[in-house]
């Protein structure tokens, strides 16, 4: 799927556009940034509740083009700015991580 398809898939709100045409091949669900750093596959979308600037830094370093922030968590200003600057798409959703994960899994054709 493409980054731009994420928003509809999770009934999300876009906070940063990123690269709408970037290809998403996988997803990783975690709130532990070291775990994301060590284990998340490249070109995947990060599903998390960790709403701060460092999440963007990790996504950027690992090569994740998009972040989904779950449970209706709000996006701090500096996180949004950082996402825009690094060209990483950032969405918020009311869904929890489990729901967001299976919605994305369906869209990726994994289930």
């Amino acid at each position, binding site marked *: 799927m493409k980054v731009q398809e994420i928003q509809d898939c999770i009934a999300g709100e876009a906070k940063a556009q990123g690269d709408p045409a970037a290809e998403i091949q996988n997803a990783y669900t975690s*709130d*532990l*940034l*070291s*775990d994301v*750093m*060590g284990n998340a596959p*490249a070109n995947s979308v990060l599903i*998390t509740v*960790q709403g*701060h*600037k*460092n*999440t963007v*830094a*990790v996504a*950027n*370093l*690992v*090569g994740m083009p998009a972040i989904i922030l779950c449970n209706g968590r709000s996006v701090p200003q*500096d996180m949004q700015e950082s996402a825009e600057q690094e060209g990483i798409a950032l969405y918020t959703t009311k869904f929890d991580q489990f729901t967001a994960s299976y919605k994305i899994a369906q869209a990726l054709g994994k289930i």
Partner: protein
Amino acid sequence: MQSIPINTYDSPTAVLELIYKLKVKDVMTKDIHTSKPEATMGQIRTILKDNSITGLPVIENNQILGIVSMEDVLQAIDKGGSNAPVGQYMSKKLIVLEEDMPIFFAISYFGRYSYRRFPVINRANELVGIVTSRDITTKLLVEANHEIERLEKESEAPQDVYTGQVERWFKVQRYDFENAGFASTEIKKILKGRSINSQTARRIAITAYELEMNLVVHSNGGSIHFLMDDSRVLVQADDTGPGIENVEAALTEGYTTATEWIRSLGFGAGMGLPNVQRVSDEFSLTSEPSRGTHAKSIILLPHPEQKQTY
């Protein structure tokens, strides 16, 4: 936090390093005139005039009692007190600096108080010098000059973008989550510029990020040293404390000493150092409690032939 008249947030590191590195004793005047408390104000006037200075400390047994300035002399003369002892007119409200303080303190003191000079004492409370803002300016100019000379030489040295060595130093502050990730992001940019293959670049990014976060979360502050040549990348994190109690445990996945607050931010799960160790080709960790910790990771770069087939 004391305020000083330069922006400490994004000033060039070279300047900041200077004002932290230079100590008051490096800039102060050591050969100073002093007076005994029983000297008269008239005698003081002569000393000040003959030596073109504007004030001097009053001492007894190497201990500083006060400071007498040209203003005090003028006041004494106004009141007809030329023969009065210094002890009567000197200023006893003293603000002193210690010789081992960074000049950062001295600069902030000049901003905070209207005094034009501060006596400097050593650990035994003995007077060892005087520092004026002029002393600081002069020394800073000299040092800044050296530094610029060094930087100019460095930038003249040819730095091929595709081959040769790249070296960077990054300062990392304790609990500075605001700038956390800066060093690793910069390092990633350098790797991109070199078109290192993405697998290797990712391992280096992991190492850099985890070591950087360790400095933010656990150390009293430290530095990341990045050094890359054609065959390998070194990422080294050094701090000055507090040190790791149990190095072996620190390398065990899941072991953590992080606080609840740190963990709520998604860090401190005890995966950092094991992550680094896993992705490094060579890894070493040395630490002494209450001293510093030194973590060193080396990642080998694929040979050029391999790069082409990638």
